[in-house]
């Protein structure tokens, strides 16, 4: 396929990251490639230490690839302004890491970094979408783990990202909130046709949510394909 016809939103090209530690070079990720079209959900599976977070952090450019690169709409992301890129490729982490203040202040944070103010109705709308209507003025210090994660999802969505990166967004929650948040995320992502990279260590979750699965082991790709191809053995 020629570059002209390329409809991929996100493409990782032999993405690698090696650290220069005092004890010698340490390879966290080697030659990982994949391509995602708009609206696809890629589940990244692998044991602890496989390099899943490393991969996700590079997609948001929180860490720098030492080799290979990422193409965003066909363009090398290192040529883009980092802050602009991060607005378009949002991220939700394992913990909510909310900023001190109210839920509404957290939701407003992202757009404010780019000079945009959200109207009260827009904030309420986002809070309603994550099932937190009426919590706008609540101090985030008093939220439960599940509620905090919902606010952090609303905070990420406020930037209207085209790609959403999820780093084990449900693994710090109890079973009930786990299911709720998983369903919430799937419906939000599908509704908006958002492209999504979803790190999980839960095979059944990957089966439920993903269009594509990338298996990582020891920093290397151990398989890339549909959930049926890779997970129904």
């Amino acid at each position, binding site marked *: 396929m020629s570059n002209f016809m390329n409809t991929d939103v996100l493409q990782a090209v032999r993405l690698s990251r090696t650290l220069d530690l005092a004890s010698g070079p340490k390879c966290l990720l080697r030659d990982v490639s994949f391509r995602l079209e708009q609206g696809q959900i890629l589940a990244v599976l692998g044991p602890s230490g496989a390099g899943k977070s490393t991969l996700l952090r590079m997609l*948001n*450019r*929180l*860490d*720098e690839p030492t080799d290979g690169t990422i193409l965003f709409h066909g363009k090398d992301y290192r040529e883009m302004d*980092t*802050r*602009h890129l*991060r*607005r378009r490729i*949002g*991220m939700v*982490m394992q*913990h909510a*890491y909310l*900023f*001190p203040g109210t839920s509404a202040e957290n939701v407003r*944070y*992202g757009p404010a*970094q*780019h000079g945009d103010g959200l109207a009260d109705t827009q904030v309420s709308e986002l809070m309603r979408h994550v099932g937190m209507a009426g919590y706008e003025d609540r101090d985030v210090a008093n939220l439960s783990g599940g509620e905090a994660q919902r606010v*952090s999802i609303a*905070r*990420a969505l406020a*930037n209207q990202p085209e790609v959403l990166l999820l780093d084990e967004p449900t693994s710090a929650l109890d079973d009930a909130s786990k299911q709720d948040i998983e369903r919430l995320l799937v419906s939000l992502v599908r509704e908006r046709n958002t492209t999504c990279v979803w790190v999980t260590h839960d095979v059944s979750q990957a089966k439920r949510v993903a269009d594509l699965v990338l298996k990582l082991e020891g920093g290397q790709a151990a398989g890339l394909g549909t959930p049926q191809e890779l997970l129904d053995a």
Partner: protein
Amino acid sequence: MLRLLFHTQVSLGLGQAAAVAVLAILVARFAARRGANIGKEIPLVLLRGLVQILLVGLLIAALLRGPWWTGIPVLAAMIFIASTIVRRRVPELPGAYTLSLLCMCAGAGGVLTVMTLLGIVEPKIIILIPVGSMVIAQNMNIQSLFLNRFLGEVRSHRGEIESALALGAAADRAAEPYLRASFHASLIPATDNLRSLGIVWIPGMMAGMVLSGSSPVYAALYQFIILGMIFTAGGISCLTATYLAPRRIFTPQQQLRPLS
């Protein structure tokens, strides 16, 4: 009692210093037994402090015969040395030495220069060196407190900082709450000194001036001036650091460095 054993003033002083050192070592031993991590360092630190201050006493004795401007290289050297001491407090911070040097040149250096030009600090060796060294030493403490606190805050809030970056915040903005907290914390001692001046605390310089026959009112005013200088120098150096420090902990691509 010590006066019976030691006859000259210098040997008396040495004896008194030894008595204080023994007390300090005892306290350190106690603290070490309680698990505080200072016991081993203390004898060496005490010895080092004693030797340094003795050398300085000799140096000042020599300098007092020289012209006033010899104070400038002496104070400059103090700022350089103070920067190496600050760096030792925050070895994980890249470029901590240059950073501290710039900040203290702006803070202590700037304040001392202006005060001397205004004639508030008289350009005489006997004034310049003790006043200058007090301002520099306190500036060094404030600078250490600032950077130490800042690094600590950043380490314990990596998640929040990277969340802010991931939302597209500029690096300076992501670090801002922690810069503010560090700025506030580092100036607490200097603020409290001003607050309690004369009530909880009659500083050494004033005591010295009164002992050597100055008017107590003038000595009091002068002490106030010095504390004001310390506060101002510390404020300027930390303010400078709030601009320069974020550049050391973030990469040009606005990524938070590992810092370990």
